């Protein structure tokens, strides 16, 4: 299965202070046929105006990854953690038995753009925790750079699920192969530029959900910045 979702097929919310593009059912958007892709439950492409954000709200039994593309997000929670996550950084929050947190634009004037991704954890009832890591932007060039993985690692956030999130900046004309193991899924998100993946064109903010395709050939038709998630 190779299903391309053009960017304009996503559900869009414009609340003035928040512009959000939703790949899966979330908030006022509910499609019973679009609630998950394997363990993935949410992929929100959020743009939040300066000085605005999401007030305190609970999460439980979910691995929540925030990838900041532009600007800075400030996180506060009931455990006393206060942290700013900037472009080039990734935050993983394990909600486990429950956490109340608020997240908002750390800037009063500049917008922030981030991807928020939710995944079901391998087990429920974990102790809430979070981790922020910064990746080496130079190592994105023409490579799949892991930024979140089950075992974690140097500048790689750990996650309680058998999965890996890669980021890449692929120069026009370059090709990256990716082998998809049996029973696994691949979620692709083009942040910028244009890709061709096994003959399927993917433009800016397009996504693809791929299953049972053993070999992927990812080529850049224009300089491209993209995210690839290998998940069960």
């Amino acid at each position: 299965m190779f299903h391309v979702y053009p960017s304009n097929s996503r559900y869009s919310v414009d609340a003035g202070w928040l512009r959000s593009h939703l790949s899966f059912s979330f908030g006022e958007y509910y499609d019973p046929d679009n609630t998950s892709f394997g363990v993935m439950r949410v992929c929100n492409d959020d743009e939040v105006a300066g000085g605005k954000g999401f007030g305190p709200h609970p999460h439980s039994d979910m691995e929540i990854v925030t990838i900041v593309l532009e600007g800075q997000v400030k996180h506060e929670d009931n455990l006393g953690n206060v942290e700013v996550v900037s472009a080039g950084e990734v935050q993983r929050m394990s909600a486990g038995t429950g956490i109340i947190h608020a997240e908002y634009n750390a800037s009063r004037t500049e917008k922030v753009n981030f991807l928020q991704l939710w995944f079901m954890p391998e087990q429920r009832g974990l102790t809430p925790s979070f981790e922020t890591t910064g990746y080496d932007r130079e190592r994105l060039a023409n490579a799949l750079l892991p930024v979140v993985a089950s075992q974690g690692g140097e500048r790689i956030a750990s996650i309680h699920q058998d999965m890996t999130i890669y980021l890449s900046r692929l120069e026009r004309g370059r090709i990256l192969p990716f082998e998809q193991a049996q029973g696994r899924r691949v979620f692709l998100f083009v942040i910028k530029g244009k890709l061709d993946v096994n003959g399927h064109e993917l433009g800016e903010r397009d996504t693809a959900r791929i299953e049972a395709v053993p070999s992927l050939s990812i080529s850049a038709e224009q300089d491209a910045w993209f995210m690839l998630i290998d998940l069960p």
Partner: protein
Amino acid sequence: MKETLLVKHAVGGRTFIDTSRGNVEYRVERGETGWKFALYLPFDAAVEEVLKWKDELNVFLFHEWEGEPTKKTWFYVKDNPVEYDHASQCLTITAETCIEYVPDRFSAALGG
């Protein structure tokens, strides 16, 4: 003091039951291992959704006082029993822990 009971989907926040919107009689009992919520309402689409997503529920009690900030209590249902009894038209939800918070006092940066 005004009390409101809400049952929402933990993924995305869809509201299934909001007692401030209608006459839903309910009872909250605290036991040795947690809380039991009993809501008396006819079996309808909302109840069906609660049962469909019973492992992913957010249950809240909001307490509002005049001139005071609202206190919210969130209950962790995890995989505890969520059942509907057609004879008594009673939906029961069992939760094991809770966290109280006052949104207005949570975040200085948002003016709270």
